[in-house]
Structures are given as structure tokens and as C-alpha cells.
């Protein structure tokens, strides 16, 4: 297993946290790129890789935040990867719809966990305005990702539209 692609993914997480987060946030709804990357790795790679990647992605994602949340965030992300592995083994995730539901559920769980860790006031409000909407927004982006990965959207097809 070469670690270079995973280092690149971690750099992508850092890039998102430092630069792209403000750009990709619509009103107060953020794109949860780190959780999506963990779920994508879970879908396409083996369990150990996914769990360790989840751990490090959690560290990178939380490094800019309060130090007290660092361990919890890493643990939550690794747990997300573990749950993802269980789900992947037990369910058939070949179809695009199944993958999207998997991503939607995973992102929602992660957003919910982040809310619990950060002990935010107005929990229910944030469940709606952050956890659910953020999960839907990230799933839309995931849809594009899967379409491109499965070659349903290609440069030739896009060119053909115009």
C-alpha cells in the first residue's frame, strides 16, 4: 500500500479547511469534505486503510480547532470508517443510489457527532441547519464525484452538450 494518495487526500482536507471552506459554504451549510473522503476510501479500499485514513483525516480536520476536540474528532472519523466498512460488507453498494444513501447517512452521522462533541447550544436547530442540510449538500457533490468516477460524466459528454 502506497501512502502517497492518502497524503494527497489529507492535503486536500487541509486545503479545504484553510482555503476552500469559506468558498464552498453556502450560507451556513458547509461541505463536509473530510467525512466524504473517508467514506469514499471506505467504499473503494480495504478496512484497515479506511480506519487509519479516518483517524488521520480526523486529526488533520480538527488540528485547526480547539485542542480538546482533537482526539474525539479523530475517534469519530475512525469510527465512521469502521461503521462504513461494516455497512459495505453487509449491504450491496454497487448502485449509485445505494452509494448516495450511504454517503448521506455517513455524513449526517458525522455532522451529528461533531455537534455532540462541540456541545453546541440550540442542538435541534443545528441538526436541521447544519447536520441535515450539510449532509444533503455533500451528497450532491458526492453524486458528481460518483458520476465522474463511474465515467457517466466525461469530458466528451460535456462537450457534446454544447
Amino acid at each position, binding site marked *: 500500500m502506497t501512502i502517497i494518495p492518502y497524503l494527497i487526500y*489529507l*492535503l486536500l*482536507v*487541509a*486545503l479545504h*479547511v*484553510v*482555503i476552500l471552506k469559506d468558498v464552498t459554504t453556502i450560507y451556513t451549510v458547509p461541505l463536509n469534505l473530510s467525512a466524504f473522503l473517508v467514506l469514499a476510501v471506505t467504499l473503494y479500499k480495504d*478496512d*484497515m486503510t479506511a*480506519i*487509519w485514513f479516518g*483517524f488521520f483525516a480526523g*486529526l*488533520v480536520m*480538527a*488540528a*485547526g480547532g480547539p*485542542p*480538546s476536540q*482533537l*482526539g*474525539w474528532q*479523530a*475517534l469519530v472519523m*475512525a469510527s465512521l470508517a*469502521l461503521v462504513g*466498512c461494516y455497512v459495505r460488507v453487509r449491504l450491496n453498494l454497487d448502485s449509485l443510489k445505494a452509494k448516495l444513501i450511504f454517503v448521506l447517512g455517513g455524513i449526517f452521522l458525522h455532522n451529528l457527532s461533531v455537534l455532540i462533541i462541540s456541545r453546541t447550544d440550540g442542538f435541534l436547530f443545528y441538526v436541521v441547519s447544519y447536520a441535515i442540510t450539510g449532509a444533503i449538500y455533500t451528497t450532491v457533490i458526492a453524486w458528481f464525484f460518483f458520476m465522474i468516477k463511474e465515467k457517466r460524466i466525461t469530458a466528451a459528454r460535456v462537450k457534446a452538450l454544447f
Partner: protein
Amino acid sequence: MKWISNLVSGYIRTFHFAVICLLALGLVFGGSQVTGVVSGVTVTVFYYPFSLLKNTVLNLVGVAEENKRLQLTLREATLQLTRLQEIERENERLHGILNFEPPPGHILLQARVLSVSGTTTPVSAVINRGERDSVRIDMPIINEQGLIGRVVSVFENVAKIQLLTDPTHRLAARVATSREMGIVKYRSREGMILDNLPIQGTIEISDQILSSGLGGIYPAGLVVGTVRTVERLEEEPFCRVTIDPAANFNSLEELFVLREHQP
């Protein structure tokens, strides 16, 4: 055999997750020193390059915006400077006019030049004073520098003036110091000249030339110009005298119609 493989891989997965849990709990309960080191290393390795990039880009954007703002300020300042310089020039000109006093027995009627005509040098001009302002034909026109010309036609609201630089214009003049007399003309090649001054007449460079008062149009003592060159040729009965006009005929703006004072 498959169930054994599944069991082993399940154990390995659980083992790895247990290690991760230990690490994470170590971070949670390890105190601020451990989390500080881990987050410091992570930030340095993963965040720092992007943070640097972001700051550089923001700085560049800031510099570009600052540059745009400064250019705008510079343009506004240049416009304001031009306006202030124009006001200063006008101020100087008006100060000169304020100190200017008419010849005895005359009053001044201020006029503004509306248009100037002439090919190489201006020969006539139109002013914004006419019959309504009691302007009459042959009234002299002056400014704070000296004699300009005379009124040649008058309309209701405007009047046309013939300038000293018109080649058909003639003016009886005298040298201020020696009181020698001659006729001021304008020739396109030589410029303004003093003609008909006898060769034995006393005249020097820089002597002032004034109107003589003869001829009935211009009162005596109005400044016409200063002597630039004097040539005395033995075969000719008159001196060749060229004059620098006192007034600048290329920048006529504020003029005065000289009217006789009638008590």
C-alpha cells in the same frame, strides 16, 4: 476456510480500531501538552503551506485593490490640482486687474472676450459688451498689460474690436523718454513696428512706446509695448524699430472698454 479468513480479518480490524481508540483516548486524556504537539505538527505539515498560499494571495489582492484605490485618488488629485492651478492663474489675473487704474478722465467697462479670429496672429475679437452697455465705435480697448485695439462695430449685446495686430491698423505713438513720434503698425513678417521715426531721433532698446493721443481715438499715455530692436540705415530716412507688444494677444480673456467720463 472463508469463515476463518473473515474471522481473522475481523480480529485484525478490531485490533487496529482498538489501537486507534487508544491513540485517540490518549489525545483526549493526555493533556494539553500532547494535543499541543500533535496539533502543532499537523498544522505545520498540512496547514502551513496552504495558509502561506492564502496569505500571499490575500496580500496580492490587497495590493491590487490598494493600487486601484491609489490610482483613483491620484486621478482625483490631478484633477483637483489642475482646477486649483487654473483658479490660481485667474486669481493672479484678477489681482492685476484690481490694481489697474484707467487714464484720467476715463472709466473702465469690463468685458469678456467671446471669440478671437485671425490666421497666424489674432486680428479681431468679439467681446460681450454692446450698445446696451453704451459701447460705441472707436472706443479704445485695453487690458491691465496695455493697449489692445479699438471697437470697429457694435451690436446689441456684443462688439467687434480691431486689434493692434491687424495689419491695417495704425496708431500714433511716441517714445516715452524722448517723446519722439511715429506710427505703430503690424507687419506679419517683422511683427509690431514703429514707423516714421526719423533716423536722427533718439530711441534706445527697451524704451517704452506709448499712445500719443493724436488721431482722436486713443487717449495719450497708453502703453503699447517696448522697443526690441533699432536699426539705422544711412540710405533710409527713418529708423527701423521693432516693438514687443505690451499685451499678449494670444491669451486675451478679460478686457476693458475705455469710456470718457461724463460727469
